[in-house]
């Protein structure tokens, strides 16, 4: 019997954010994030959320505004998608460089051109170099849980880096699911008030955002890199603490589903893992040793843990809703690096699926697994239509 109530994802996310007591919220509407900010506005208007809620003139300003508030020492929140995330791109990098613990929800959506408002993960993947931690939710329960954990991780003095919680656009915010949210009291026990290391305050002035010459800049990036690596055990620590506090496993580096004796392991992020788990069950019933590893923490990329979890496989099938045009698919590429030069060397195949909101079906997943088992694939496209003529492309 599921604990909780049937609630729309955007409302659940807004309530989870409210439980975290942000002081300043600023966002700019973009489909499919809009419902989240509308719910937050509604909660502020009803007095359920005591925060400064500021409608700005664009995403670049939304991110900039929360940067300013965070630098002044308060907890903040913003949300965006797709073009909005790209538009605020320079601010995203800036926030990480300034080591401000901003938490953002990104409702994953494809990128223009052409314009497409539906779900894929190209947007957040484009920010993987930014210095933000990235956590991917499978369902709305986990989205809410990850938001609470995100503030703990970001504000931990051993981290002090911003965190992006990624939820598949439309699939999660718009869907109705049963979500269990803690009481404010329990949330407060898990997430204490924010204690900044440095803040703008005339009583104790600092200069923030200085410019660093070549003889100093490189060290600042090195510091972020080392911190990212050091945050891996911290992420696990906080996930364990969450489980103890609220009685359910949520977050962490990844979720292993029937991988222990699997010879074929699928790796994926986000909601499509749900479909993949169904396929895994079906194939297992037929006697195939298949499993799925759902990656939750994509940044930092948990290299050692992934190696340990996947080293027993013969075939690794990476399915992604993103690609690096002209290169390869992000997760597959990074996973290959993890195994490079190590004793275990499974065949790692990468596949691109579900771009622009195209459905990821059970048949698609089966076809992908079968393809990977037959033939090592660098980057295959699953589910492309065969009935269309594509100008400039020979079939």
């Amino acid at each position, binding site marked *: 019997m599921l604990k909780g109530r049937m609630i729309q994802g955007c409302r659940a996310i807004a309530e989870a954010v409210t439980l975290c007591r942000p002081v300043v919220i600023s966002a700019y509407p973009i489909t499919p994030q809009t419902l989240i900010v509308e719910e937050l506005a509604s909660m502020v208007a009803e007095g359920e959320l005591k925060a400064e809620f500021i409608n700005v003139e664009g995403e670049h300003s939304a991110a900039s505004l929360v940067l300013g508030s965070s630098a002044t020492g308060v907890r903040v929140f913003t949300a965006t998608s797709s073009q909005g995330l790209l538009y605020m791109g320079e601010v995203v990098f800036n926030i990480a460089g300034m*080591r401000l613990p901003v938490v953002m929800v990104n409702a994953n959506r494809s990128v223009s051109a052409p314009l497409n408002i539906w779900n894929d993960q190209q947007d957040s993947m484009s920010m993987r170099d930014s210095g933000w931690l990235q956590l991917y939710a499978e369902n709305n329960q986990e989205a809410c849980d990850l938001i609470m954990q995100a503030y703990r991780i970001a504000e931990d003095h051993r981290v002090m880096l911003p965190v992006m919680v990624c939820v598949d656009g439309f699939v999660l915010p718009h869907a109705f699911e049963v979500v269990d949210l803690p009481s404010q009291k329990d949330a407060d026990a898990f997430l204490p008030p924010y204690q900044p290391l440095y803040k703008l305050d005339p009583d104790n*002035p600092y200069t923030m955002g*200085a410019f660093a010459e070549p003889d100093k800049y490189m060290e600042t990036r090195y510091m972020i890199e080392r911190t990212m690596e050091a945050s891996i055990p911290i992420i696990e620590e906080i996930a364990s603490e969450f489980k103890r506090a609220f009685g359910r496993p949520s977050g962490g580096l990844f979720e292993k589903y029937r991988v222990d004796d699997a010879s074929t392991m699928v790796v994926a992020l986000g909601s499509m893992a749900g479909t993949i788990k169904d396929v895994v069950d079906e194939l297992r019933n037929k006697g195939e040793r298949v499993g799925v590893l759902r990656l939750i923490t994509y940044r930092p990329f948990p290299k050692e843990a992934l190696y340990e979890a996947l080293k027993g496989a013969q075939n690794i099938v990476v399915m992604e809703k993103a690609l690096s045009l002209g290169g390869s698919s992000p997760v597959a590429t990074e996973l290959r690096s993890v195994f490079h030069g190590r004793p275990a060397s499974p065949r790692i195949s990468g596949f691109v699926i579900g771009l622009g909101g195209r459905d990821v079906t059970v048949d698609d997943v089966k076809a992908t697994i079968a393809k990977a088992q037959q033939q090592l694939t660098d980057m295959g496209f699953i589910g492309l239509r065969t009935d269309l003529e594509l100008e400039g492309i020979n079939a």
Partner: protein
Amino acid sequence: MKITLGAVTRPGGSRVNKTGAWRTAGKPHFLQKNCIGCDVCALSCPEGCIFGTGQKTYYANEDFCKGCGICANVCPVHDIEMIPEEAEDA
């Protein structure tokens, strides 16, 4: 030297940078003859390195003076002259 998170700095550290070393052409010489203590020279110095507390007490701190000459130019009673760098201050 420690690199802080986000390269955050404490205030006022620029004073280690003795910009007086920039001067080549000349430096201000305060005649202390006509000075009426109007404070305009101190107000107009981009470096903020001119000090004084009344008539005929003004001087420029040569550690920071870049020799721009604004003070000499704005003094309403022409009590500041730009003199060569090598010259001794009277």
